[in-house]
């Protein structure tokens, strides 16, 4: 097991390397640059700036320099657009907020989605089933940028229960977390509810559940001990993609709810061709995702004894 974890961890290194390389060149190939804005700069100023950021060197040299900074010094460089701010500083100021929001949303969607799915399966074709599956259909088909404003409209503008926008660090405090987290969790809640309903139903039909019942076990033991473990495995393997989706989804939600997270910086940096900031965002996003997938693999391995760690 330990060997498997270490091997899996080491395999993250080439993955990250490929991501860094690909995104570096793709970004530089794309037309435009950080200083080709609306206002044309005088040529000698431009030359000076380019020189300052070593952008007058050949692309290969820039790439090597970048790799050296990132890998050896964990230095993502200065932002080209936010003057006097380093990419490291910008990201470490905003990323924790996004990750926290994503994490809360993921927990919410797993807990509620799992519960709804299990209840639906156990009450198949009863009202509990119809209710949660109808809610799930809404969650899957309505996009975030609709769900967000709609619940803002209802719970903030009409009922005045919650502040329209803002973040935990604002005066309103923790309640600001509720609407963004619910919005972000909703589609994943829906998907997990359907996923777990399906897999509980499938496990219920399996031979080993028939065996468990034929042994005279109580239905609560049959469900709690024999059904759930097998039925939750598909949900666990979905956690990786779900986390990826939630992290990217948070870009929309951060915009809708005015949350000073990394998502908004990401969008801005892409529009500005702020090379170092884009790269920094991509690298940190990828690192988080790749690591999340690694965690999921490890959890899966703990749950399913048939996975061999060789």
């Amino acid at each position, binding site marked *: 097991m330990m060997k498997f974890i270490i091997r899996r961890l080491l395999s993250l290194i080439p993955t990250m390397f490929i991501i860094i390389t690909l995104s570096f060149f793709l970004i530089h190939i794309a037309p435009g640059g950080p200083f080709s804005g609306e206002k044309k700069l005088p040529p000698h100023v431009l030359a000076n700036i380019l020189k300052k950021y070593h952008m007058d060197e050949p692309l290969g040299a820039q790439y090597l320099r970048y790799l050296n900074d990132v890998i050896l010094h964990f230095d993502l460089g200065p932002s080209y657009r936010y003057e006097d701010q380093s990419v490291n500083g910008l990201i470490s100021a905003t990323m924790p907020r996004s990750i926290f929001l994503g994490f809360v949303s993921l927990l919410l969607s797993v807990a509620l989605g799992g519960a709804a799915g299990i209840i639906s399966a156990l009450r198949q074709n009863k009202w509990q089933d119809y209710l949660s599956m109808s809610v799930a259909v809404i969650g899957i088909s309505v996009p975030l940028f609709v769900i967000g404003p709609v619940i803002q409209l209802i719970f903030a503008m009409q009922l005045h229960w919650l502040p329209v926008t803002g973040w935990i660090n604002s005066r309103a405090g923790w309640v600001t977390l509720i609407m963004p987290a619910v919005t972000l969790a909703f589609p994943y809640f829906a998907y997990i509810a359907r996923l777990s309903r399906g897999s509980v139903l499938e496990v219920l039909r*399996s*031979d*080993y559940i028939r065996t468990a019942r034929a*042994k*005279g*076990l*109580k239905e609560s033991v049959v469900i709690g001990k024999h059904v759930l473990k097998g039925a939750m495995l598909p949900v666990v393997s979905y956690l990786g993609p779900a986390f990826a989706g939630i992290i990217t989804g948070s870009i929309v939600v951060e915009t809708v709810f005015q949350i000073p997270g990394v998502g908004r910086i990401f969008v801005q940096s892409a529009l500005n061709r702020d090379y170092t900031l884009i790269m920094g965002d991509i690298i940190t996003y990828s690192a988080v995702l790749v690591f999340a997938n690694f965690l999921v693999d490890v959890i899966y391995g703990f749950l399913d*004894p048939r996975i061999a760690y060789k």
Partner: protein
Amino acid sequence: MTEEIILQVQDLKTYFHTDEGIVKAVDGVTFDLHKGETLGIVGESGSGKSVTNLSIINMIPNPPGKIAGGQVMYAGKDLVKLTINELRSIRGNKISMIFQDPMTSLNPYLRISTQMIETIVLHQKLDKKTAKAKAIDMLKLAGIPAPEKRIDQYPHQFSGGMRQRVMIAMGLSCNPEILIADEPTSALDVTIQAQILDLIKDLTARLGTAVILITHSLGVVAGMCDTICVMYAGRIVERGPTTEIFDKPKHPYTQGLIKSVPRLDKTSGDRLYSIRGQPPNVIDLPDCCPFYPRCDKAMDVCKRKYPLSKDVGNGHAVSCWLYTEAK
């Protein structure tokens, strides 16, 4: 085998309500099981063997299935009418079941020890440690080498034959009066089949357990069973002691089954006999003899009415108009 009857199945009917119509999977099955007896139920696929036995412990998935009539008398109680809690105290305790596919019948996510101990703790009210010792003993009896090590492994670490041994050990761990084995060897290699059948035979003989053995194969029942029931389309068409059935088969279907068993003493040039036609569809079956379309000796009356069971002596009974006076 003694004269004491421990299980009496009477006119049992189990129907499935499906979109295509009512599937009369079991339609009036009657038989007795004696203490220590090994009773074989033989029949083609779909004849209702599994449904009969799931009905005995009242485990028919409902919906779509329902026990539509009849009785299953065990220890003075009708199992069909018991509450779920009363049933649970019988399942796995007094009446155990093992199934066809050992690869899927054990929970892949739980250790063998967990799965065996939970049954023993549940029914025998032992503490976990004693239960584990008991489970290890059972595994040893079932021919699992190094059971004290193997018990903490997961099912995927066992071969198919070994898993069936585990199922047998688990099934017998509470000393049941009846073991129902639903095609316990169909999913296994031929060489392993014989070992598993021998194991069931030995262990149940030693523990005095009565067995209901379900199978497609007359060869299997010949070597194992005291009594044979031949099922066709949800009914038992012939029933009697094994020697009677093999020496003096009455029902044309039984005769066909026996003729279609490959034999070593026949000249190899002969083609293997097989009963013509297809097994019947048991949806909305009319009240005729379901075998008549495939029967060489079919008469007019066979199409009109199902024949009552007729006792032909020596505990041998048959449902066929050839032996019954048409009224």
